[in-house]
């Protein structure tokens, strides 16, 4: 029984991180109707940013969030403004716009290889005071950095939700997501909203990277490991849904952790993809049935 509890807790902790990786992806899709293939690369950038801050200046990875998150916001803002916007504009009237898709795919390959060139194919691990620290509750061990990552994830997802629901800018973002032409007619500068939305999404994605630093290795291809997960979760939770992304992440974490106690880890991977295919087939709008909030 303790083992099952242990598996449930470990699964939820990791699941929250998966959920947060999916959040940035679902946000961009919900608002811009764009699939960001370079998503994993931005996780990797967040990782390296957090890691180098810690390695070079000794700034704690959690404290480093104050720098990493705004940095990633600015990065995302300008990637959208300079790279994506022109392609987006040129395809406004096109029936099947794939230019942006190709652009982000190219960006992914470029960023991963650029990191490889810059940092080499080395694995790096930050050794903070709480790396490997565990809290003990009865027989159950809870990894401290994973617990912190879990709490920060839930907190930031909630803040984002409130921001989108209650603030004027949040409403403008949602309006743009719902119907960009109408939003534009209502006086919203949709390209400015796109810049901000992309910035927010990349800020969240970079934050995941930084949160992983205390308990994960940093490597130019480390983002890709989480990338595939993120895509599955976005589909599970419903494209564009914030609660869907977090719940989908938690579900995947649980399947992976609890499922592995009854079958081999190879099988749980198969099951995750099986669920993914089943949801696509039976409920393409996501298994939780959240209404599109945009």
């Amino acid at each position: 029984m303790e083992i099952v509890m242990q598996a449930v807790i470990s699964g939820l902790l990791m699941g929250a991180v998966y959920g947060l990786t999916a959040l940035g992806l679902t946000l961009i899709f919900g608002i811009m109707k764009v699939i960001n293939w370079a998503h994993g690369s931005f996780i990797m950038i967040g990782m390296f940013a957090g890691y180098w801050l810690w390695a070079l200046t000794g700034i704690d990875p959690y404290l480093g969030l104050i720098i990493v998150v705004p940095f990633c916001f600015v990065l995302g803002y300008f990637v959208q403004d300079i790279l994506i916007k022109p392609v987006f504009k040129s395809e406004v009237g096109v029936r099947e716009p794939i230019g942006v898709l190709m652009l982000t795919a190219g960006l992914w390959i470029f960023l991963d290889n650029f990191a490889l060139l810059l940092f080499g194919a080395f694995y790096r691990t930050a050794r903070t005071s709480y790396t490997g620290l565990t809290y003990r509750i009865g027989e159950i061990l809870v990894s401290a950095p994973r617990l912190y990552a879990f709490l920060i994830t839930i907190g930031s997802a909630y803040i984002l939700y409130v921001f989108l629901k209650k603030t004027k800018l949040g409403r403008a973002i949602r309006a743009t997501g719902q119907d960009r032409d109408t939003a534009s007619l209502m006086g919203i500068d949709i390209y400015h909203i796109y810049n901000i939305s992309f910035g927010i999404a990349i800020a969240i994605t970079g934050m995941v990277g930084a949160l992983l630093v205390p308990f994960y290795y940093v490597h130019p291809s480390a983002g890709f490991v989480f990338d595939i997960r993120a895509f599955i979760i976005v589909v599970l939770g419903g494209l564009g849904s914030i609660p869907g992304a977090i719940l989908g992440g938690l579900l995947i974490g649980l399947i992976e952790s609890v499922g592995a106690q009854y079958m081999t880890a190879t099988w749980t991977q198969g099951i995750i993809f099986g669920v993914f295919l089943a949801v696509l087939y039976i409920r393409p709008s996501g298994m939780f049935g959240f209404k599109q909030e945009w």
Partner: protein
Amino acid sequence: MFHYKTKSSWKKLIAFTTIVSFILISSFVGGAIGAETAKEVKIGNVLPLSGDVAPIGKIGQYARKMAVEEINAAGGIKSLGGAKLKMVYADSRSDSKVGATETERLIFREKVSIITGCYQSGVTYPSTAVAERYKTPFFVPVSVMDKITERGFKYTFRLAAKASWWGRDQFAFIDEMGKKTGKHAETAALIYENTDWGQSTAEGWKEEAPKYGIEIVLDEPYPHTAPDLTPVIIKLKKSEADVALFVSYVADAILLANTIAEMKVDTLAFISSAGGQADPQWLLNTGKNARYMFDIAEWETDLGSPGTKETAEKFYKKYGLVMPAEAVNAYASMYVIADVLERAASTDPEKIREAFTKTHITTGPAMLVPYDVISFDESGQNPNANLVMTQVREVNGKLERVSVWPSTAARKGWQPIWPMPKWEERK
């Protein structure tokens, strides 16, 4: 149209006859040169010298070159009137078909007396078959596939251990440690990456374990690209296995060791199979978490055999590369060949084969490999090819891989620590 076709076939015929006559003439000339310079023994080497694996192929080439330079400088093969070893290299391009045709070319065109190679088992397997057909001795320094020396061949000889011996030695070690310390392992957990490499290793384990009365309580193949391996480690903890065996690449090996420390999994020992855990990056990314973990290897720089340090240093100075196990085997192979030729006192393949079967080397540079004896059994396999068990230990405040088993190969003054200290009791 017809006219054109005739012309084209004429051209082909001319080209064909030119090539054939060229080959005939050059082979006569080649034969003539060979007869004139009987003062050298040609050794063919099939190696992957281009493509992905080229860096390792080149290392094998450097190691051979270094050994041959030394042998020739010391007077060559004395029983052949000081004949020098002459190396002929052929590029396999990591392709089994190319390896086989290059072997054929070395035998017929280059008229080599012995062939070595080919690094990859997949290339060595068909190439040795070609050499067998033409009765030319083929000496294999590293390829590990079991079957290479299990086909009843008379002309194939292998220095290195077979793939299945890795698992054999891991279990022999577990058994010996149990007897020595009284802490017997009765159950084992097998945790391995789920591709061909991990699965074939695990099959070997499943054959070995029952021989020592060890029950397998966890058989866990995992995808090495999984973002989180905590579920696997929780399972390991639940299984309460006495020992855990691993086959991993680097990234997953890092996650496994760090998660084991996090989940405080206590076993008698963790033993890995020279994959990710042998990569220097593993230790850098796990640090103290890797302490007391065992890893089996072909060769280590701290081995006690005389000349190890000097040879490794010379290699580094000459080529700017750390000498890996492949290089050590290639280097030692040349000395084995020199010994064989010395006793054969002939370049006749039949006499060389005879000499190979009577090999019994216990001293000299060939003993850089950590074996007690180099000899070849009926199948052509060196039955004494054992492996080395290393343990991550603190040496002067720094974590290092220390060779601890078998005792003949252990670093001076070092003993394996079995069982490993419990996580709660470590500071």
